[in-house]
């Protein structure tokens, strides 16, 4: 592999890591605070991708994408709010299986709705940031660089929200001791809704941002959920830094795994081999906290 190729595939890995991080961060944030693994997280991502594609194609290139992104994030956030109130509130504190079934049911409902509303065909949308850059003799879609930049901004935003705002402080307190938080004057019920809306919005943001970079079909919900789940297991559920590191690992493994002919058929398998290895050696993930 030449240095130029190495750079090419590394950039591909970074672009993968970028959208995967945005999705995994939402999954992880929700798990950290609510202790619920949201099986419908990928569904929200898929809804956002479709909404973005449809609106972007309606309104037209460029501006249409940004309008689609805003609407998609608002729609997924709103769905998240409804789901939290109607479904999650009934399963908090129950055994994990009940929670998984509850959110899995939501994912089936959403998947069905997406097929009815958007149909089964793959859809695409033109990139709002067209053009290519030349690095080391290879050309890169400018949009990939935008995805990477967006993920960095979102990572910084999530970090600042958690460590520089009262909301974030309350979320961290809820991770540690929701009962004490309630007895300290914070409405934990409402806080949980807020966290879930933020998590859903991150899924939506991921789906919107990914839309111009790949064909959008009705199975991308499970595709992304499986990867986001692997990332969270590798990085540690509930840890934002873990999500970032996990996304980098998974993004790179997929990028390099796919281009090396010998490993191409197994690229995804490598992700799960790493996941299994981490689970064996360090069950809570690289950056996860032990469950209390």
């Amino acid at each position, binding site marked *: 592999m030449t240095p130029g190729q190495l750079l090419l595939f590394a950039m591909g890995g970074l672009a993968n890591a970028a959208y995967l991080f945005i999705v995994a961060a939402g999954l992880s944030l929700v798990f950290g605070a609510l202790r619920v693994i949201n099986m419908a997280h990928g569904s929200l991502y898929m809804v956002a991708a479709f909404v973005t594609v449809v609106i972007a194609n309606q309104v037209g290139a460029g501006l249409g994408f940004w309008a689609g992104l805003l609407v998609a994030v608002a729609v997924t956030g709103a769905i998240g709010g409804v789901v939290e109130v109607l479904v999650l509130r009934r399963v908090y504190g129950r055994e994990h299986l009940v929670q998984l079934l509850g959110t899995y049911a939501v994912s089936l409902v959403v998947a069905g709705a997406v097929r009815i509303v958007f149909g089964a065909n793959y859809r695409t949308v033109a990139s709002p940031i067209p053009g290519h850059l030349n690095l080391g003799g290879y050309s890169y879609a400018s949009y990939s660089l935008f995805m990477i930049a967006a993920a960095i901004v979102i990572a910084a935003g999530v970090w600042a929200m958690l460590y520089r705002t009262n909301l974030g*402080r309350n979320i961290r307190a809820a991770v*540690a001791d929701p*009962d004490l938080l309630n007895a300290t*004057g914070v409405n934990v019920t409402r806080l949980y809704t807020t966290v879930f809306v933020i998590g859903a919005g991150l899924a939506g943001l991921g789906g919107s941002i990914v839309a111009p970079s790949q064909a959008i079909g009705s199975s991308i919900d499970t595709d992304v959920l499986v990867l986001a789940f692997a990332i969270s297991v590798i990085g540690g559920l509930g840890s934002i830094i873990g999500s970032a590191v996990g996304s980098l690992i998974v993004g790179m493994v997929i990028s390099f795994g796919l281009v090396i002919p010998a490993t191409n058929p197994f690229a995804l398998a490598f992700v799960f081999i790493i996941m299994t290895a981490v689970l064996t050696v360090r069950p809570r993930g690289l950056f996860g906290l032990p469950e209390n």
Partner: protein
Amino acid sequence: MLKVEGLNVRYGKSHVVFDFTVEVGDGELLAVLGRNGAGKTTTIRGIVGLLAGASGKVSVGGRDMSAWPAHRRTREGLAYVPSGARCFQNLTVDENLEIAAHANGADHSWTKKRIWELFPKLEPLKNNLAGGLSGGERQMLAVGRALMGNPRVMLLDEPTEGLAPVLVQSIGTLLGTLKSTGVSILLAEQNHQMALRVADRAAFIEKGRVVEVLPAARARDSEVLHRILGV
């Protein structure tokens, strides 16, 4: 003033607190004494509003809080110091105090600065995570956190548990000072000597029932103290 009328608490089918009824006046301290498992913690958590199986009436300064969730009760005048020096372990000392800051329109408004004056040992630790503090430091932090809500009523669950005698002394002094600012205090304690030193009255509970309420002076070496606490 804290008024609790007919508080009953059930954990599922098991009835644990029966018709708990007390009044704690402004600037008064009521000690709640009883053996392990008598129902002290359950009573306090029921008053705070943390237990789904609680019924009865709770009012503070004439305002009926019975229908309010715990977060509203603790935002508007009740403060709870849980047992075991419970703090938000993954938050800094500073954040543990800030998270509880509620104005409540009280005239004596507590600030972090006043907490540092009260517990000088905490100030140099303000950027440390609460989880790294010693038991005594966390107990001070738990009391400080309750004060930051500018409470009119404080409910303390064994605040001296596991503390060195000097610290027990200073908690006692603090409670005395708080009383003089008009705060109503309900103090559950195993350490009856400390409790009765600062208390105005003592309620003895046995198997979830108040069996006797006495002025502290009379409680000190009453028959009921000997019988219930076995001292």
